[in-house]
């Protein structure tokens, strides 16, 4: 029953994803790789699309993965799953316990898990980086160094960092994606 699996999987993702947007990337990545729903490459393609279209990243990812696995109903069940926990939790807070966040215990748990979320995002990015650039997946497996990917990474990082230093503003993620697309075509054609 793929619909139920999608619903329950994204229900879990919606319920534990703190920190917005990228906070749930590690969990979604594990889930899609474990279920063999997507390859690492397809997953990265999806994030690029989710990032360059409007709306919350989580909703976009759920819709996309649901649709790729089980068509319209799959998209619908996955999206409902990822939204439902927030909806219920916020309703409870709005209707019953307006002061939930004022309790010291709740505060300390919420700020206690913040570094975990940061760690999860960074570790996922590092793992992806090593896999993509060095073709390294696990101990013992053969690996291959991808010079072109490293070159693109360095150019993009340089542009984003320099822009931040000199213009004091964030370089738009969508423009970065466009730039990297251009670089991708360039290194493949040359």
């Amino acid at each position, binding site marked *: 029953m793929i619909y139920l699996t999608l619903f329950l999987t994204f229900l879990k993702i919606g319920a534990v994803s703190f920190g917005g947007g990228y906070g749930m990337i590690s969990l979604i990545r594990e889930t899609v790789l474990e279920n063999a729903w997507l390859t690492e490459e397809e997953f990265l393609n999806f994030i690029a699309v989710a990032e360059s*279209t409007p709306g919350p990243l989580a909703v976009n990812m759920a819709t996309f993965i649901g*649709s790729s696995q089980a068509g319209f109903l799959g998209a619908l069940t996955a999206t409902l799953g990822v939204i439902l926990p927030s909806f219920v939790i916020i*309703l409870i807070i709005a209707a019953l316990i307006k002061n939930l966040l004022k309790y010291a215990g709740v505060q*300390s748990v919420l700020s206690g898990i913040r570094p975990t979320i940061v760690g999860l995002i960074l570790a996922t990015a590092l793992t992806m980086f090593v896999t993509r650039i060095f073709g390294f997946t696990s101990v013992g497996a053969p690996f291959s160094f991808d010079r072109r990917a490293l070159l693109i990474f360095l150019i993009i990082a340089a542009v984003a960092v320099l822009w931040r230093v000199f213009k004091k503003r964030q370089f738009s993620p969508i423009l970065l994606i466009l730039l990297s697309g251009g670089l991708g075509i360039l290194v*493949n054609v040359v």
Partner: protein
Amino acid sequence: MQKFKTCLKLFLVMFKIGLFTFGGGYAMIGLLENELVSRRKWLESDEFLNVVAIAESTPGPVAINAATYVGYKLAGFWGSLSATVAVALPSFSIIFLISLFFDAFLSLKYVAYAFDGIRVCVIFLILSAGVKMLLKLEKTVWNIVVTSVVIAVMVALSVLSIAFSSVWYILITAGLALLLYLFSYFCARRKKSSEQKPDAEGKQ
């Protein structure tokens, strides 16, 4: 009838917000502030900050959380339902349409080349999101230790290809944080009561 009108208005405003927020929740906060506080005066500025704090610290997308909360404030359960559906609907429709054509799109040669570069860029975007959050963290012992332990363990496990869900990292640190809080709470209470006792005796 009045309520139905409010719901409809909520739906339209949230639909618009859902349609124009690129780059996730934090970009949406500015837009929400503009619509709800400055233009329509549906919320006071203080109240809006409260909504943002709640939306950010509860699980789930910030946009969904904020929409649900604002909807409930203005028109109860039906308000929250219409606001939440409205804010998710644009992304749902757009992404669903894209997903239908995406494979065909990717099979074009130059698009496939472009996505070679784009995948690298996505890794950079995730990394920089993580670094940005890292820089915002307070430099407390807890934060430094937890962040480094999580990174070390997670990278090590993935290198050894041992499956261990991210959910566990969150649950374990939440449990530890709660224990730490309870411990310090009871320590403080015990200290307080032992300080009060000689006081009370002195009065007698």
